[in-house]
């Protein structure tokens, strides 16, 4: 498959397997999806379906027990999997792609001032002097709504919401085209979550940034999403335009996932999915969701094809 350069991010057959004492965990097992510039894709799925591993695989932040890491990741027309670690560090890290981590408390160095940490990427990648980098950091602080005098504070002196804003400021300081957000609001209260999402929306329109937002909070993420990718057992089972997805999810798993979100109006009881997601050590053959699927039929024992429906894709026998 050749890369189509209209995409900002093009992931093809991305795999990340870990070695554990119980066997090889296929956390990311052949993921494909594309993202256009200035779009936000939301990756949703249950806990343990490989969402965070997917982020790690895209960012090449591999743990020590990697068993297999392969596939292709194109950023514009740059194929990053072929780069050596040093080339990748110099060309991709924080220049083309940055990260807002899951837990901002632990993601900030406790003994460095937050301003220095925000300014750091400018100094490393663009050889900017410290004063200039700090100016850029101050600009970013203003942009994300952190009081400017907080640059001299340490992470432990900030509230959870402020820390998350600092992490966002840090991810934007070099103005990368793509920002990965790994559950950026999961540790925050509802008000702060809403604030952060408003901030992200503003950044997206003002700075033309693209986002890959990894979350299990479908309701809140619908605010930001242009596209939705549903992940199940290490694979993407559906990629769709957000509008169509929220109206009419195609994959039975997506439908179940949507039905499990409580609604303010209407008498629908929140639905749940019976059973457990399959073990990623020995994933079942055929459709991985088949065991829990209400619409399963004979064909589900065979590996389902990825069906392309316009811009959208769904990996299910029902849509063949």
């Amino acid at each position, binding site marked *: 498959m050749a890369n189509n350069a209209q995409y900002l991010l093009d992931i093809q057959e991305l795999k990340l397997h870990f070695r554990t004492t119980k066997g090889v965990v296929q956390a990311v097992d052949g993921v494909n999806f594309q993202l256009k510039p200035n779009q936000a894709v939301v990756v949703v799925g249950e806990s343990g379906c490989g969402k965070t591993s997917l982020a790690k695989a895209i960012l090449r932040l591999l743990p020590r027990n990697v068993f297999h890491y392969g596939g292709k990741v194109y950023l514009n027309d740059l194929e990053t999997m072929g780069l050596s670690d040093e080339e990748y560090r110099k060309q991709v*890290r924080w220049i083309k792609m940055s990260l807002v981590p899951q837990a901002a408390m632990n*993601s900030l*160095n*406790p003994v460095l001032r937050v301003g220095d940490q925000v300014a750091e990427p400018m100094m*490393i990648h663009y050889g900017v002097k410290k004063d200039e980098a700090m100016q850029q950091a101050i600009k970013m602080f203003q942009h994300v*709504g952190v009081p400017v005098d907080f640059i001299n504070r340490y992470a432990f002196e900030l509230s959870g919401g402020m820390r998350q804003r600092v992490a966002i400021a840090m991810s934007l300081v070099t103005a990368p085209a793509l920002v990965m957000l790994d559950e950026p609001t999961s540790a925050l209260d509802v008000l702060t979550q809403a604030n952060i999402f*408003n901030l992200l929306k503003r950044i997206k329109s003002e700075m033309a940034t693209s986002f890959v937002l990894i979350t299990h909070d479908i309701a809140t993420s619908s605010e930001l999403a242009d596209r939705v990718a549903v992940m199940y057992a290490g694979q993407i089972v559906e990629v769709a335009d957000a509008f169509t997805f929220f109206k009419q999810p195609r994959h039975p798993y997506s439908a179940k996932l949507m039905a499990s979100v409580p609604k303010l109006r209407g008498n629908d009881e929140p639905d749940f999915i019976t059973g457990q997601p399959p073990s990623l050590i020995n994933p079942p053959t055929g459709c991985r969701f088949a065991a829990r699927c209400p619409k399963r039929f004979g064909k589900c024992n065979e590996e389902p094809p990825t069906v392309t429906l316009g811009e959208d894709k769904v990996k299910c026998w029902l849509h063949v």
Partner: protein
Amino acid sequence: MTSETPSKENLQIKSTAADTFKRLMRFMSFRVLMLVVTIVVAVYSTIMIANMGGYVDTIMRNDIRESTIMKVAAMTANKPISGDARRQMQEEMIALEEKRLGLDTPFIIRSFRYLGNALTLNLGRAIYMVSDHGSKAVRAIILERLPATLLLMGTAELFLFFTSVFLALMLSRSYGSFWDKLVITLSPTSAAPPWFYGIFFILIFAAVLKILPFGGMVSSPPPETTIGYSLDLLKHMILPASSLVISAFFISLYNWRTFFLIYSSEDYVDMAKAKGLTSRDIERRYILRPTLPTIITNFALLIISLWTGATITETVFLWPGLGRTIFRAIGFYDTPVIVGTTIIYAYLLAITVFLLDFVYAIVDPRVKVGGGNK
């Protein structure tokens, strides 16, 4: 839009800054008080233990009696003197000698006098031991042996500390590699004490291969030129120093490697990697910097531990150090020497602990003087 306005927090910080000095002084005086109490208790316990709770008095009394009787017998051997007069003479001399050594006052009273002397660093005179220059002053005995110990222990321990920290940092980067597994496999070698390795080293390098000396600090007679003397010293130091290093090397490496491994799996280290920092920068700013307090503590305690020397290793290698002196002092019940070394050790430890509090506050922004609102 922001629900988290900082003004309230700022006010709080300013108002606490006003009485930071007061809090600091209160904290410091409390710390000093605690450390003084610790030193007093430690030294008094040492005095009691070194005197075996006063039993050393009995030993000394018997010693005095025996030597005085012999002395009187020798003095009066050729003199016509009655048994009573001789006995009287004996008793007078014994009383005089006991008075000279202070044995006429009860031990419990003297123990407090010893404590006072020890705390004011008035180390007094040894009972039996003599320095190589013939002085009985405890200070002279200790100062004479200290350089030898500091030279041997300093070289070995500093080498051990810096190499193991440096290598462990490298090792933590290649978790599960061949070298990593090798270090883990070899770490039980540290179960054997340094003198155990020393005995084998002496056997191999001195007795069989005859390339290094058996022990001691310099050859006899010592070389006359400074360079010759240094080289000779170095040659004598190789075996004891390497047994000290080898016996602790792998466990120390293993400890530090595990320590760095834990700290290098922190989220902020991953974040630093994602930001594109070089591995050198990550190690410096994201692994070493946050762990600096622990490293400094270990280093400070190591520096104090140099003071006591390595008792048995020094004995095996006939190294004229402090460890051997303490060993001999214990054998002689020479309490002033034992107490003297202990009191200096206690003071060094207390000063180090006191200073470490301040070092922590400097290197770790999370450490603040207690009593604040955080």
